């Protein structure tokens, strides 16, 4: 039987690095997925991934198990996502939308060449619209729309009221719909 998170946490605290890896490999794909969807860049997602798990590694000795490990981890992930963008904004004046640095978009396979071009344009517009959102709006939209997380769970992760999360989601949707009105939505 595979060890529980708590057992792995105890082993990690005792200095067992293999246990630490086993623990984080249970969740790291989710963290990377959230980061990728939030930043839309594999390089930025990797940065966030490293930052999240470095923080987990440093803080694990103080983790007392008052919440689930996953809840704690996702809280760290949302914090890093939110501060990552503001740090980037503060440090360099780069365009928010960087074609060089973006993740691959998979065009639907059954469509013809013309449709591919059209899809790419639509994707670009959607990405631009997402980049107009504030970090919190974007994060809530990402977690609810792409990760299918419940709003009450997102509220716990972001350490705010559920009503606030609802507000972010609504505002995000409205902003994006306005920006994408050319696409008849």
């Amino acid at each position, binding site marked *: 039987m595979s060890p529980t998170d708590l057992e792995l946490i105890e082993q990690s605290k005792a200095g067992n690095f293999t246990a630490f890896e086993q623990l984080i490999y249970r969740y790291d794909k989710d963290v990377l*997925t959230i980061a990728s969807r939030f930043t839309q860049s594999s390089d930025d997602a*990797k940065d966030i991934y490293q930052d999240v798990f470095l923080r987990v590694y440093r803080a694990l000795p103080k983790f007392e198990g008052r919440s689930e490990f996953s809840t704690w981890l996702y809280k760290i992930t949302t914090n890093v996502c939110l501060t990552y963008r503001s740090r980037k904004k503060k440090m360099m004046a780069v365009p928010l939308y960087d074609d060089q640095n973006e993740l691959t978009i998979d065009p639907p396979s059954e469509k013809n060449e013309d449709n591919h071009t059209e899809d790419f344009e*639509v*994707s670009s517009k959607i990405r631009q619209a997402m980049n107009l959102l504030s970090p919190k709006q974007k994060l809530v939209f990402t977690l*609810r729309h792409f990760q299918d997380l419940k709003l009450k769970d997102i509220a716990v992760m972001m350490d705010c009221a559920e009503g606030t999360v609802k507000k972010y*989601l*609504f505002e995000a949707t409205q902003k994006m719909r306005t920006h994408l009105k050319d696409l008849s939505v």
Partner: protein
Amino acid sequence: MKKEEYEELLLLSTYGELNAEEQVKLEKYAKSHPEIKAELERIQEFQKLVKGNISIQVSDSLVEESRKELRQMLRSERNKKTFVTRSAEQFVQFFQGPLKLAFGGTGVLAVGIVVGYFVFHSAQNENGFAFQSIKNSNNSRDQSSQITNIKFIDGDASDGIVEFEFETVTPMHLKGKIDNPEVQKILTYALLNESNDGIRLRTVNAIAQQAEQGHFADSSVKQALIRSLKEDENPGVRGKALRALQQYRFDDELRDALLYVLAKDKNSGMRIAAINALETARIDGNKFDDTVAQKLKQQIENEKNNYIRNRAVNFVKEIYQ
């Protein structure tokens, strides 16, 4: 109900996030406002459009790459904080507190005495206020232990007592056969976590030599070898790991690791060693199915090295014969 309020409820309803009260409210509103249906359709259309056109895939290679970088970063994280840097950090932190003026001088004195103790190993500490807890801890400490990561719990020496927390590192000597669990634990640790390339190389060499003589370490060591083969930054270590793994019974896990090296390793020598190992396994009677052939075909398309490409082509031919 205001327009914005019903629009928010409408949006939440598409995510199944309405509570009972909100649901009733929205249904009631919808009865007297049939135009709401069109708005609902527009929201759903928008959601479909976004989901359908932003399909961000986190590939396995991105996960592997991230894990590899993380392991390297954590390895250096563990190694970078030496006794000196940690002590310096604590020292600086101590003097950045709000009571720095009041207790700075006392702190300097306390730290000075502690440092003096470690430097000179003075025996004159029986009456020294700073040495009480150190002395107590010292009782359970081996003389060869090194002290690291000192943290002040109570740096205020005004009451005559200071309190520290610290870690001790004790050198150990271990001699044993490769199948000894303790030995295997150390070998696995060294393979995965040791920052010194030479030590990882010697570790993997020791495992290879023992394996050649028929002494096999358990599956955790084998897993560590596979990870070294795939992820170690030093090609020498990766090469030795491959040599060691060849002594083990050929199985799907090893086959996949070799295919991984063939596809991902930037060092052509490693890719040649991988295809050689696959070839040897085939000659030894191991069967390769269509999945392997497909992976090799993919490799043929991406491989820039003619020699490796030809070897892969021949290997595929052999599979289908």
